[in-house]
């Protein structure tokens, strides 16, 4: 069963030196997951100020700065994992460094047939 773990946190909760340590730990976690056959993908994201939104309505493409930040916590990174069930996904989510200062949302992934 595949899950995406979406890590939300307030930007600036990590000092640069702390961030470096957290990213090292995340890389180690990815290796540990990979050894269990549970790792699919993971990455931290650039700050939300670098984000761009695109919408197509009635054939017309609209590009804007954004998204509009309604909450303080922003999407800061993600893991895509393949584990047996939700309890295992919860264990992985709890061991992500970002979870210690933010909120990690676990979403089951729909297995769409016919993908490349």
């Amino acid at each position, binding site marked *: 069963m595949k899950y995406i773990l979406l890590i939300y946190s307030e930007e600036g909760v990590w000092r640069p030196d702390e961030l470096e340590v957290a990213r090292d730990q995340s890389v180690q976690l990815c290796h540990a997951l990979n050894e269990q056959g549970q790792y699919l993908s993971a990455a931290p994201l650039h700050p939300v100020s670098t984000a761009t939104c695109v919408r197509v309505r009635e054939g017309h493409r609209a590009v804007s700065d954004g998204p509009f930040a309604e909450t303080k916590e922003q999407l800061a990174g993600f893991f895509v994992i393949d584990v047996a069930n939700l309890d295992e996904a919860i264990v992985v989510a709890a061991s992500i460094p970002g979870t210690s200062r933010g909120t990690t949302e*676990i979403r089951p992934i729909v297995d769409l047939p016919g993908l490349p």
Partner: protein
Amino acid sequence: MDSSEVEELYRSDSRKVFATLVRLLGNFDLAEEATHEAFAAAIQQWPEQGTPANPTSWLVSTGRFKAVDMLRRRARLNDLQPELIRRLSDIETSNQSMAEQVIKDDRLRLIFTCCHPAIDPKVQVPLTLREVCGLKTEEIARAFLMTPSTLAQRIVRGKAKIRAARIPYVIPSLNELPERLDPVLSVIYLVFNEGYSASSGDSLTRVELSAEAIRLARLLVELLPDPEAIGLLALMLLHESRRETRMNAAGDIILLEEQDRSLWDNEFIAEGRRLVEQALRSRRFGIYTIQAAISAVHAEAKLACETDWAQIVALYDVLLRADASPVVELNRAVAIAMRDDVASGLAIIDAILNRGDLRDYYLAHSARGEFLRRLGNREQAKLAFERALSLTQQETEQRFLSKKIAEMERDC
């Protein structure tokens, strides 16, 4: 076994059969159908062919074959469902005989799945009552004053979450147990309180709801004798022992100190006290056990004036360390007033309110009003009772407070 005895068995054992079929089939709805089919087959076959040696095992294995039939019929209808077809072969090869322990574990799995922390607490309660206790959706809706369709939606939402997020059907490991047991206990206590508080709904369904919570706690204690599960069962039994004396014939509240203690249910009290002692001996108890211990001290006093308030204050001190909440502080203030004097209790309540806690909690103002009344300050007492009245929606509480206000006005 005739058909009425099969019906009796349905009441006592259908949820066991269901729980095991959920594990075998991995699907709540299919397990529900298979359970019904198995009992329907029993009503047909047992009177003629005799009752099998182990009825529960027979029902599980019959339910399993009925599910296989249902899956086959559906597989023919639409040829997708490769996963279901894979299950078909799994099911056919699994063992006929069923150990008692396996069946017990399945019920425990079902409880932990329905009370998984990933499920909305608003959904956990009806889902548990429906799937673990086997209550009908209409019965649950009536008890919670909701429309059956709203309630059915919540149950569907819960089952969809279990399926889509793949919440496992397992008993948590020992190191997860504290975290996982908490929501189970709180679901049981919520069900009990819904049945015990006189807020709403007709009284019959409420008694049943409390009885269901006690049954659920007994089941949990039998399956997993954790001290806090034992403490919760004790707490509910001790509360339940006073059910009949909490209200007069007109439905008005009778306070603990004015209740006719000769009408308290001694059997519930004896069992509750025994369980409290058992939980306390474990030294791993928590807030339910401490509250049960407090309730047991009340139960020990034949007359209200014989209550060991020093003991109760000491237990509230322990409870405050485990659960430092303003509501616990308020209850402790009442115990202090009884042990020492009313003015000391009032000072504590005023301190809680002055720092900004419990200002919208009617019981804080109601207790404050009562203390002021006892101190002879009728004017201030009346104001406190009025404040309390404005904060409660419970009809019986409103009547109680209105009476108090009227008394204050008369004597002013």
